[in-house]
């Protein structure tokens, strides 16, 4: 049973610390301090923490874009040594290629994997439909709204079928109205694809609405401060209902007060 439990942990972070060297002052910036966390298969894990606490640093390390010296990061049992298709990333900024159409952006991962064109086309269409971009297949990114661009980025990552999805404030740059829609859609997509997701955000409401669990980080150097479980069935997560549901509001208030402590300490 023990072995089985280990296999179900898709992402394991142990004793992870990170320092950035500062070339000008010679002093280094301690960004992450002894971070330990686990995300199980199919789980939606939200990460919140004050600005500059090292969330993006964590994500870049998990993605393999930033090498780590202290601690270990394992995805599906394998130590992370660099970027790889087992970890899909949705960045905060628009990272889709302006010279590729929606369709070709979404299928880019499959193209890299060398999937034959007819099979690729079928898979791409599936994800175009999933994120609601049907009819926009042949548009270029500059012809899309900010929200639509993030849908493309999301579909591109999903389409490559990673073991773990890493998302860094993907909705921070869109307007409030679009954000609400995108959050509900991401929830629907997470149910449909049963992906394991680590989702970083500033937004406490967003974390409580989307997450099965929420990791709260301290201010810099970031460490895990607390974990809050959100006992709200995924299927019933719609904003209209959530705002009146004690399972949601209770978790949100708890996360909020934990985050506030960090921000207030920072001010005082």
């Amino acid at each position, binding site marked *: 049973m023990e072995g089985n439990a280990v296999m179900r942990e898709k992402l394991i972070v142990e004793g992870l610390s990170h320092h950035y060297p500062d070339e000008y002052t010679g002093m280094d910036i301690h960004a992450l301090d002894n971070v330990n966390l686990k995300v199980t298969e199919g789980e939606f894990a939200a990460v919140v923490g004050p600005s500059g606490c090292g969330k993006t640093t964590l994500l870049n390390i998990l*993605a*393999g*874009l930033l090498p780590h010296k202290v601690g270990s990061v394992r995805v599906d049992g394998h130590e992370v040594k*660099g*970027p*790889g*298709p087992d*970890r*899909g*990333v949705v*960045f905060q*900024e628009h*990272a*889709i*290629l*302006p*010279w590729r159409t929606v369709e070709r952006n979404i299928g*880019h*991962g499959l193209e*890299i*994997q060398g999937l034959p064109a007819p099979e690729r086309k079928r898979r791409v269409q599936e994800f175009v439909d999933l994120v609601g971009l049907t009819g926009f297949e042949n548009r*270029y*990114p*500059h*012809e899309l709204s900010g929200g639509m661009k993030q849908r493309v980025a999301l579909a*591109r990552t999903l389409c*490559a079928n990673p073991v773990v999805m890493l998302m860094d404030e993907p909705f921070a740059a869109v307007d409030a109205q679009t954000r609400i829609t995108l959050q509900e859609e991401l929830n629907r997509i997470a149910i449909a694809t049963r992906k394991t997701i680590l989702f970083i955000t500033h937004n406490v409401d967003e974390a409580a609405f989307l997450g099965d669990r929420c990791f709260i980080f301290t201010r810099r150097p970031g460490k895990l401060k607390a974990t809050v479980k959100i006992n709200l069935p995924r299927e019933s997560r719609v904003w209209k209902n959530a705002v009146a549901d004690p399972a949601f509001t209770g978790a949100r208030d708890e996360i909020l007060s934990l985050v506030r402590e960090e921000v207030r300490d920072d001010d005082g």
Partner: protein
Amino acid sequence: MTTVSAPAAPARRDRKHPRLHRFLHQGGLELACVLLGGLALWSFLSHVVIPRPDRYLPSPGSVVFSSADMLWKGLLPDFVTNTVWRLLIGSGLGLGVGIPFGILLGLNRTVSDMFYPILNFFQSISGIALLPIVMIWWGTSEQTVIFVILYTVLFPISFNVLVGVRSIPRIYINALRTLGASRLQIARDVILPGALPSIATGARLGIGFGWRAVIAGEMLAGQRGLGWMIFTAQQVDLTAQVILGMTLIGIMWIVLDRYLLRPLEADTIQRWGLVQR
């Protein structure tokens, strides 16, 4: 009943001649006016003001006459083809060397830091200043002229591509790395298309410099071509031919630039909406 009257649709002017309309709209009218004005002034100077116009400033009429003469003998088309061929070959080689070189410089700081002073040194030596040494090597040959064009095209294209590659957002490369792309795939899918607008700009600039270099090269080291033509015409006081050559050089550049290079540049930039960045 209350009805909201729709704003009147703007009256669409009946366009019977869309081509003419577009031509006039894209500054064709101004161009025509300037040209006609210029011709009138030139005629006036030549006929009324300047003494011995055949020696100093032949009238448009006699320039056209001299061109008819050369057309008749088949010399002019020959010279034009010569010059254009040299430009194409020299520029082609220059772009062929300069684009990969610029990409290499753009990708690798160490390499670009190493090459930068050398590049800067040679950039200050124009193609014409290089001619004497090349003529010592290869004499007045085709090779000499083409080498000078290649040399001239090389710098603007390399520098432009270097800057183009450097300005590709890092996030595009990172996104592709997380999709599992190899270095080669990143070069093909991000670096090359990302640098394309600057490749187009650099090519246009480079070929512009190259066009001047062909003419200069032909004057000193050519045995045929437009540059050679005006240079030799000067030596025997065929002023009409000199002016004819100059005019052709200018007109051919306008045509090349407007109908080939500029659309090429605009296409890559506009289609991807890169202009808005």
